[in-house]
């Protein structure tokens, strides 16, 4: 896999490094590719089950209860929750860095973004874990 060129200026006399050091942004870049590929299956399958195979009106509480009787579906839904939130969070972080230039506004925007995402991740996890069959 070809990593993006890292912004590492070469100073005089320094030897050319074959492999640039993997910093946070490199890992974030790799994470977006890997999680994106997994989400492609998770999200489209989830949409197909809840909107194409079944009509949306049929996916009522009994439908959810029946599905969540199987812990594997809970795992599926939790993976979708976690990966989609992290993937979206990281994407929004990039967007904020691109368009919100004033330092204070940027910090505030990110603080709101991180708090909302983290709270909803906790809320969603609690929902999936604590649900007791009807």
């Amino acid at each position, binding site marked *: *896999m*070809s990593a993006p060129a890292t912004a590492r200026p070469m100073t005089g006399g320094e030897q050319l490094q074959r492999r640039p050091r993997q910093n946070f942004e490199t890992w974030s870049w790799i994470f977006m*590719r890997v999680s*994106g*590929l997994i*989400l*492609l299956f998770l*999200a*489209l399958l989830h*949409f197909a089950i809840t*909107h*194409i195979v079944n*009509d*949306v*009106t049929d*996916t*009522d*509480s009994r439908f*959810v*209860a029946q599905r969540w009787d199987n812990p594997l579906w809970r795992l599926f839904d939790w993976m979708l*929750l976690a990966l*989609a*939130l992290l993937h*979206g*969070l990281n*994407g*929004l972080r990039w*967007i904020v860095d691109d368009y919100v230039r004033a330092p204070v506004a940027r910090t505030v925007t990110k603080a709101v973004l991180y708090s*909302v995402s983290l709270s*909803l991740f906790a*809320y*969603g996890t*609690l*929902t999936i874990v*604590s*649900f007791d069959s*009807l």
Partner: protein
Amino acid sequence: MTGRAAPSVYRGRGGQWAFVTHRITGVLVFLFLLLHIVDVSLIARPDLYDEIHELYGNVVLRLFEVGLLFALLFHSLNGLRVVMVDLFPGAIANERAVLRAVVVLTVVLTALGGYVIMKPFLDGRIFT
């Protein structure tokens, strides 16, 4: 030259539009995800969940679901294109054809899925 400097806006072609659309669809799907976590979490009170959930069946929200399908498909397929270009730089030679395939697949699959989603309305089974 007098006056203000020319705006330094990058004017790309298809790839630039794909980039912008990728961001917009990404933000929209993320916003829907936030809403979706809240509405699914109502399952802790099943009757409340069912009451709210019924709304998703009306025609306005069905159209919204078709929009969501479009956003999901475009973001997925265009993301696949981005990964492809990253892994196989040689694919850049066929960039335009690949982008066209992304757009065509997105439109066709949205139309097919949209038909299924709107069918109860088209059949006259729901009017609101």
